[in-house]
Every structure is written in structure tokens, then in C-alpha cells.
């Protein structure tokens, strides 16, 4: 093909024109194909987009339903577990309100330690049920006003094990077992039922040991009036490293000093962990 049109013969020019005409027809044809392809792709994308929005709508609806149900289940579980715990208290007049207070303080303590929602829920179950094993302790021992005989005390010391056995049969409550089984263990290994030492006792047990002792001291007993909270805190501090985990005690003291124990005990409703 010559670049200089002026030098072309007529035949050459006609060939040139034919060539370009064909070429532009091919181009137009290609362009039409591309345009149609684009339209198809656009339609396909639009359909996929509509499909994805339907997925998002379904997901949203299911998510809200699951959330509502979770709140309901949580409420039901807390109510059921609470009723179970209260049935123990009804037999033991000296500990009225004990489980409710222990569960409130435990929840505040664990929240302070940075526990997540699900773990907090387990902590509440564990705290509410920590004395459930007392169901296997005879009334004569449970309600005895005086000192227990060594045999009676040995029976009393079975309650964490009995409690753990009871929870073993309920799948949702199995994670709460360390609270129940280990809340009478001591840092120095002189606790029961297993006599675990230091960090051998699961964190759950070490936490509940502090809270349980704090509430026991600040509640009235037949043989003494309740201790002031300050006095109980001082006693817990004194027993850090012997009875209690020396690293957890300062955390508990701070919880008290920040007024969060008072707040937990005074709030009217129990915390709804799953309510949003």
C-alpha cells in the first residue's frame, strides 16, 4: 500500500477504497458484538446484584431472629437456673440471698477482668449454681446451728463434687463446672475437695472463692453479726497468698474501691448479657 495518494493510479485507489470499506464493516460488526456482550454482562451483573440483595435481606432477618431467640434462651436459662439455686436456699435459712449476691458480684468481677459476653454468661450460671451440691447434704447438717462434727463436715465438703456431678448431665452447664467444683479450693492447697494448689485451681474457682468468702463475711450468721465490707476486704487482703490468689485479690479490692460491688448489689434488674 502506498502512502502517497496523489501518486496512485485509479486501480490502486479503487482497491484502497474497497479495502477500507471492508475493514470498517468488520469493525462495525465487532463493535456490535462487543456492545451486545456488554449488554448481556450488564444484565447478568444486575441479576447477580439482585440475588445478593436477597441474600442480605435473608441474612438480616435470620440474624435478628437468632438474636431474639438467644435473648429468650438466656432469660429462660437464667430463670431456670435461678429457680434451681433458690430451691437450695429455701432449705438453708442462713444463706438467704447469698446466691443472688454472689452471682451479681461474680459477674461484675469477671466483667472487670475483661471477660467476653459468653464467658460472662457461664460465670453467672456457675455463681448461681455454686452451692447446688448442697441438695445432697442432709437437712440436719445444713441447718445445724452449732459446730459440725468431723463426719458431718466431711459430708458437707462433698457439696462441690455433688454439684459438679449434677451439672455434668446438662450440656449447657458443663462449662460452669469449674466454678462449682473448685470454689472451696485454697491457694495454699488446704482447700477441698481436691486440695489443688495455686494456679492448679482453675481461674473460675479462684474467682468464686474470693466472692463467696466476701459475701459470707458480709452476711449475718446466727453466731455473729455481718462484717462491714471494709473489714471483709481487709480480711481478704490479709489472706492473699494463703487462701486466695494473690494476683486476683488486688483486682477485687479495686472493684470494691471503684464502687462496682455496691453497684452490682443495688441494681434492680439482673444484667441481660445478650440483649442489644
Amino acid at each position, binding site marked *: 500500500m502506498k502512502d502517497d495518494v496523489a501518486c496512485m493510479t485509479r486501480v490502486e485507489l479503487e482497491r484502497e477504497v474497497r479495502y477500507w470499506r471492508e475493514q470498517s464493516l468488520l469493525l462495525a460488526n465487532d463493535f456490535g458484538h462487543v456492545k451486545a456482550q456488554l449488554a448481556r454482562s450488564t444484565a447478568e451483573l444486575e441479576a*447477580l446484584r439482585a440475588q445478593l440483595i*436477597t*441474600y442480605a435481606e435473608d441474612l438480616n432477618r435470620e440474624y435478628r431472629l437468632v438474636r431474639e431467640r438467644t435473648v429468650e434462651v438466656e432469660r429462660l436459662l437464667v430463670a431456670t437456673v435461678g429457680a434451681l439455686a433458690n430451691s437450695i436456699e429455701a432449705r438453708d435459712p442462713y444463706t438467704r440471698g447469698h446466691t443472688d449476691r454472689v452471682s451479681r458480684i461474680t459477674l461484675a468481677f469477671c466483667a472487670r477482668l475483661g471477660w467476653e459476653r459468653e464467658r460472662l454468661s457461664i460465670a453467672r450460671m456457675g455463681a448461681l449454681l455454686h452451692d447446688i451440691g448442697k441438695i445432697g447434704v442432709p437437712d440436719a447438717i445444713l441447718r445445724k446451728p452449732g459446730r459440725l462434727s468431723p463426719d458431718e463436715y466431711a459430708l458437707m465438703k462433698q457439696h462441690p463434687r455433688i454439684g459438679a456431678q449434677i451439672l455434668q448431665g446438662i450440656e449447657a452447664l458443663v462449662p460452669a463446672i469449674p466454678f462449682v467444683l473448685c470454689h472451696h479450693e485454697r491457694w495454699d492447697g488446704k482447700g477441698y475437695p481436691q486440695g489443688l494448689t495455686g494456679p492448679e485451681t482453675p481461674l473460675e474457682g479462684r474467682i468464686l472463692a474470693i466472692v463467696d468468702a466476701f459475701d459470707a463475711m458480709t452476711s449475718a450468721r446466727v453466731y455473729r453479726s455481718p462484717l462491714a465490707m471494709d473489714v471483709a476486704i481487709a480480711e481478704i487482703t490479709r489472706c492473699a497468698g494463703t487462701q486466695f490468689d494473690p494476683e486476683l485479690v488486688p483486682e477485687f479490692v479495686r472493684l470494691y474501691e471503684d464502687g462496682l460491688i455496691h453497684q452490682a448489689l443495688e441494681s434492680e434488674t439482673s444484667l441481660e448479657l445478650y440483649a442489644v
Partner: protein
Amino acid sequence: MTKKILIADANHARRSLLRATLNDPRYQIIEASGGVQALALREVHRPDLVILDESMPGISGVEVCRAIKQGAKAGTTPVILLSEKEPPVGSTGDEGEPDVYLSKPYSPLRLLSAVEQLLGPVED
């Protein structure tokens, strides 16, 4: 025992979406990218359920469905048709019709419940 589900759709992205939606250890998913392949894979795998996209080039979902429903050789395999239009009124249950119509965009929840309903109880 796992149940086999054959999904047929020409679009790869839509097949992935279907596969992800049906993801369940109880289900084994077989993919076909067209009507001919769908019919061939059905012969090989004998799926417990077939999910068809209506708008496949060549042999369409409707035609695959008709072939499945009228060829009594493999027994009655339940079929879900993902359809472009609203399902024709009162036509389900006729010969050659799918068991369930879902118009696109389909609700994944309705798809899942249709699958469970058609497969019946599946043991874990």
C-alpha cells in the same frame, strides 16, 4: 448418609453461590454448567435432588426438568427450578413440571427449606 444434589447453572458465580448456600456435611454437591452435562451427570451420579437454572443456553432448565420427569428410568428425582418469571399458577405437580418453582432472585432461606422438604429427613 450424605445426599447428592446436582446443581446446573451456566454461570460460574451463581453456581458458587448455590454451592455456598447448600454447604452442609450432609450434602454432596455436583455441578453442571449446562443442560447436556446436567443430564449426563444425572445418569452417572443418580442425585437425590436436582436444582436447575431456567436460563441455560442449549438445553434449558425447563427441558432438563421435563427430561428428568418423563424419563421414568431413574425413578422420580425431585427438581427445583430457578425461574426467571413467576411460576405458572396451579401447574405444579403436572407431568414434566418441577416440584418447586423459585423465581429469581430467589430467597436462599426458601431454597434451603425447599431442599430440606424435598430430601426428607437426613441423618447427620
